[in-house]
Structure formats: C-alpha cells, structure tokens
C-alpha cells in the first residue's frame, strides 16, 4: 500500500500545490509507515518530486493528454491507484482536481472528503477535518469505506522539503475514448489567478464604477496579486464573473486578502474567510468587514490606494 498523490502540472511544470500535496502525502505516509507514489502527466522534470518526500513517480507521457480531460485523467489516476494498491489518494482543490474527483471516487469506490484542511486525526477509521457551510464551520468526517479520496483545501499545508531517492516509472495507460473534447482555452497567461495567488486585491461598489479599477490593477501588480471583486460588482457587469469571490463565487484562501470598498456582507466574508491575513480599506468605520479583518484603514479608497501604491513601490525597491 502506498499513498498516491496526483501532482498537477501546467505546460509540463509542476504547480506549487503539487509540492504542498506531496508534503501532505509524505506526512500521511510517515504516520502509516508506508511510501508515497506520485502520478503526473507529461511532466518535464518528474524527479523534482523527490525533494518533497515522494518515493516513486509514475509519469504518464501521452500527447493526447496534453490538455486536461476529466474522464481520461480520472481513469489514469485510478489505474495508478490500482497499480500501487493505494487506498488513500490525495488531490488538490484546483478546478481540474475537483472536476475529476467525483469520477475517480466512483471508479475507486472511495469515500470522498473534499476541502480537507488538516492531516487526518485518525486512521481507523480515517477521520479528517474539512471546511463546510462555506467556511462558516468545520465538519469532522469519517470514512466508512476501505478506499478514501482526500482533496486538500488550498493553503492548508506547508511545503516541507524532504530528500528521497525516488524511482521513476514511465507509466502508460490505454485511455478509453470519450465524447467530451476541449476545443479551445481562453486564459490570460500574464495574470496570476485567484486560485494560485498568494495575495488577492479585491474591490467592491465603493469604487463607484468600472473606470476606477486602474488603481486596483496597479496595486495588484505591485504586490504580484490577483484581482477580485464583490458580488454586486460582477452582477453590475463592472468586472467579469470569474473575479467574483464569495459564497456563490470563487473561494479565496490566499495569504493576504485586501478588500477595498467592500462592506463585508456575510456571503462575501464566508467566501474569503480561509485567507490568512485580511486587510480592509473602507470609508465607513461601521462596515461589518472591520469585524472580520486583521488590519483596517478607515479612509477614502481614492486617496488611500494611490498612496499605498507609492509607499509599496518604495518598500519593494528597498526590500
């Protein structure tokens, strides 16, 4: 039995979450006196994983699998699990991983725990803490089946460098045909995504109009951050839906979340609650966001943000 981890890559390069997940899987393996096998697709340097405690790497080199396909990928990860006799599979919470997870759980007849936020607290039965009610609560869940699939919530486990001497296997899978094909991908490659960002700069109706987003984008650029927005802003069409964060939008679990001109409705706060440090900038000292934030500035965004940009530029130049 080995713990199996699906390590995601983009254009052949591992994502940061791949190393977080490998570290998480390593910790589970240590507690169970077993090994970690990683499965990856078309990775350029699969052996990078041996810096994060992986003992064996199954790399699937297949040009037909260059772009993600949930049906094909779930079949491959399932066959890897069968091959390794893995009863615990660990995956990330990316859009792709959450797409393949339920398909994989059905194939593997695995109890599926999504949004896990810690290492398991017990292994008999397997018991894991996860977030529920859009971060308004945690749920302690036990798995009744022999097999389990755990999807780790973003920013829940730190990368831990552990050198191993891993073996590399060129793993080939006879992928079944399916009727679902990706025709085109429309993705800004020069911008950091909300899912991957360490810092997210978010703005709300306090900005008064879409023409005022220049300073938000500039602040995000200085911080290497992704931009996001509140629900009313996306409903008004000021910003694309993909930027809407909150209960019915995207969840945010960044290290730093800066909310500008967002009052802090309960649905918004639920969606961003997993972020580690929250900063609010708002003219209204009574805005509910001040109760949820770590740091706050009461002031006019149109004065505070440009000044903050200047000061951050100076700070970045010195550090």
């Amino acid at each position, binding site marked *: 039995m080995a713990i199996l981890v699906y390590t995601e890559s983009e254009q052949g390069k591992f994502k940061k979450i791949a190393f977080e997940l490998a570290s998480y899987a390593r910790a589970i393996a240590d507690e169970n006196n077993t090994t970690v096998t990683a499965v990856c697709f078309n990775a350029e340097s699969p052996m990078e994983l041996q810096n994060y405690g992986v003992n064996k790497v199954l790399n699937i080199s297949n040009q037909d699998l260059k*772009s993600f396909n949930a*049906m094909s990928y*779930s079949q491959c990860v399932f066959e890897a699990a069968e091959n390794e006799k893995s009863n615990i599979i660990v995956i990330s919470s990316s*859009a*792709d991983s959450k*797409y*393949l*997870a*339920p*398909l994989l*759980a*059905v194939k593997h*007849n*695995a*109890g599926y725990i*999504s*949004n896990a936020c810690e290492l398991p607290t017990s292994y008999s039965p397997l018991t894991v*803490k996860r*977030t*529920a*009610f*859009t*971060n*308004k*609560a*945690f*749920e*302690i*869940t*036990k*798995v*009744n089946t022999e097999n389990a699939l755990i999807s780790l919530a973003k920013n829940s486990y730190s990368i831990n460098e552990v050198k191993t001497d891993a073996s590399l296997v060129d793993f080939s899978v006879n992928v079944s045909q399916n009727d*679902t*094909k990706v*025709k*085109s*991908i429309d993705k800004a490659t020069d*911008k950091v995504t*909300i*899912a991957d960002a360490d*810092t997210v700069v978010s703005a709300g109706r306090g900005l008064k109009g879409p023409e005022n987003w220049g300073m938000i984008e500039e602040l995000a650029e200085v911080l290497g951050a992704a931009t996001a927005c509140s629900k009313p802003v996306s409903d008004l069409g000021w910003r694309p*839906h*993909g930027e809407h964060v909150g*209960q*019915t*939008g995207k969840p945010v679990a960044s*290290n*730093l979340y800066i909310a500008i001109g967002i009052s802090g409705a*309960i649905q918004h706060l639920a969606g961003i609650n997993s972020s580690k*440090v929250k*900063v609010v900038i708002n003219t209204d000292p009574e805005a509910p966001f001040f109760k949820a934030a*770590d*740091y*706050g*500035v009461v002031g*006019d965004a149109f004065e*505070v943000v440009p*000044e903050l940009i200047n*000061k951050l530029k100076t*700070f970045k130049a010195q550090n």
Partner: protein
Amino acid sequence: MKIIVCISHVPDTTSKINFSDGDTKFERNGVQFVINPNDEFGLTRAMWFKEKQGATVDVINVGLSDTESTLRKALAIGADKAIRIDMSPENGFNVAKQLANYIKKENYDLVIAGRESIDYNGGMVPGMIAGLNNANFINNCISLEIDGTNVTASREIDGGKETIESCIPLVIGAQKGLVEESDLRIPNMRGIMMARKKQLEVIPAIDASNQTNSIEFEKPKPKGEVTLVSSDNLDELINLLHNEAKVI
C-alpha cells in the same frame, strides 16, 4: 429533450450556522431554506430549454418531507414535475446513487445539478451521477447550448474558461455564469397556483450505504480585534504586514 434538475434544500446565504446535540447536528430551527443557488442557476437555464426548445423539465431532491416547499418553489418557477426520494441525506455519494438510479431508469438526456451545495460544499453529486451512469460530464459549466445530440459548453477554469464539445446524455455542474443573476425568476402568483396542481411524486430510497459520515461540527474560533491604522500613516500598515503578519 428530457431534462432533470437536482435540487438541494439549503440554508439561505445569510443564515447563521449553529449546531445542536453536542455539535453533531446542524440546527435547522429558525433557519430559512432556499433552493441551492448553484441549482437555481441550472434550473433557470433549464427553463430556457423548455421555452425555446420544447424540453420537459423535472426537478428531483433527496430529502424528507420538509424539503417539499423547495420543490414546490421549483414547480412555481416552471418545472413540470417534482420527485422526492424519501431519505435523510447524510453523504453525497449515497445521494448521487439515489439520483443516478432514478435518472438511469427514466432516461434523461440532460442532468443539471449545482457544482456544489452551499451547506456541505461536497462538490461531488453531479460528477458522481455522471460516473455512475457513464454519462458525459462538464463541471463548473458557465454556458450550455444543445443542438440535437450535440453539446457546446464552456467550463470555468482557474484564470479563464475553456470551450468544450460533447454530446448527450450529459451531466453538468451548474454555477453562476450559466445564466445571469438578473435572469433568476421569482415565482408569480399564477406560477404558485399552478405548482399546487403539479405532480410531486414521493419514491422510496434504494438500499445504499454512506461512504462517509459526519461525526462532529466546529465553529471557527472568534477573531481578535482589528488593528486600525490611520490613513495618513500607511507606512505603519506596510510595516505591520511585513514584520508582524509576514505576508509582504
């Protein structure tokens, strides 16, 4: 085209979440329940297929009799028929098996379910229905067109979207974007009256086990006080973020 929309009965987004019985049960008292928002986006798109392409739209829920108010609301919005599988839902996998069994028997072309429910956030039911019934599956679906058996859809991905071609039978995980917030429908009096006459069929659950179970719930620890920084002393904010919080 036969469409079925899976409806989850969930606490309203403004609800305060509390637990009872030694933090083992979600406290339903005083909570307003609504159609899961992701399901409602899907139901609204289904209404478009009904009105423009003559599709039939059924709605289904796994739950006890208290969820019927939510099914009636879906009927008032315009669904043709409602089905309730009589079971207290405790695990998404089990719920998916209940739904998949009925869907397979009744041969639906298109199954719409929210990408996740806003209560337990499992995010598994649509994909598991597809996996169990060997149907095509598109998650995080933000646009959907169907022409005969051909499907063109888009999926939201991290940082963008992709365009997908597929065919029916299909399951989608619905979310905002599939329709606009302003497209959502509030049932009118005529709809509510008609909903009373529509069929709401109650069927028994099939024998299936729970793959996982909740043991206990916890609430996040209360937050400390916010540290306020004066707007004319932003150097202090940068100092705190750098030296205290260590995030820049």
